[in-house]
């Protein structure tokens, strides 16, 4: 059997804590240490809040699918939604020297994960995140 976990849940922020719990424990099962588990959880959480806010425009009853998979070299997370797609040119984190609220999530995802791929096709948006074992995230660098 494929070593994967699939979660389907509504785009309601009330479930964020439940989903974080599942991600953190899955990352631990996949062999990541406590600190990396926290980072991976943060990155996936940020991607999920982006779906709620930007793809579903804070509509809390829309479907989100999350697949977590153990790979030889790390962990792969695939997140699927059916909301508003994002144009690739709009997917840029903000300048961190500009101190203002917002725009931090994408920066965090890119700092933490080893690889990030996004596809929007026929009303289906798929974000694929990969974290390689041994690729450390260092805060503030």
């Amino acid at each position: 059997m494929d070593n994967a976990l699939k979660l389907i849940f509504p785009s309601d922020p009330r479930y964020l804590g439940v989903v974080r719990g599942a991600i953190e424990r899955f990352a631990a099962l996949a062999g990541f240490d406590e600190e990396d588990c926290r980072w991976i959880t943060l990155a996936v959480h940020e991607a999920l809040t982006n779906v709620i806010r930007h793809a579903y425009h804070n509509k809390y009853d829309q479907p989100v699918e999350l697949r977590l998979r153990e790979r030889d070299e790390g962990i792969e997370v695939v997140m699927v939604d059916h909301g508003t797609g994002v144009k690739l040119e709009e997917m840029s984190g903000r300048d961190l020297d500009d101190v203002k609220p917002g725009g931090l999530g994408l920066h965090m995802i890119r700092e933490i994960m080893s690889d990030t791929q996004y596809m929007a096709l026929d009303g289906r948006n798929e974000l694929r995140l990969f974290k390689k074992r041994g690729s450390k995230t260092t805060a503030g660098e």
Partner: protein
Amino acid sequence: MNIATRQQGSSTLIDVNGDIDLYNSPEVRKIILEELKEKKVPRLIVNLTGVRYIDSSGVASLVEGLKVSRTMSSRFMLYGLSPAAREVLELSRLIRVFEVFVTEQEALEAK
């Protein structure tokens, strides 16, 4: 998440307990902005000792509080950051813009 305010001399403290994420960061933001804009407190200290987790929306609420405090000529301070909260502020490179203290006493006594 629980959030409560209390007074210590001229300082107003906000005690936050639990996770700060997209679900409840609007409440944190509302209380911070109420204290600064409506009550016009001179010194606002946010106690994060009981916060296990904070996401970018929580960080954004703190940044907004900091920016409003500057326009209101108030002080805005944080203390009691958990390792997870500190990591998130460091990753977003925002730790340097806040006045961060380890203990409540240090925050209260800061000149």
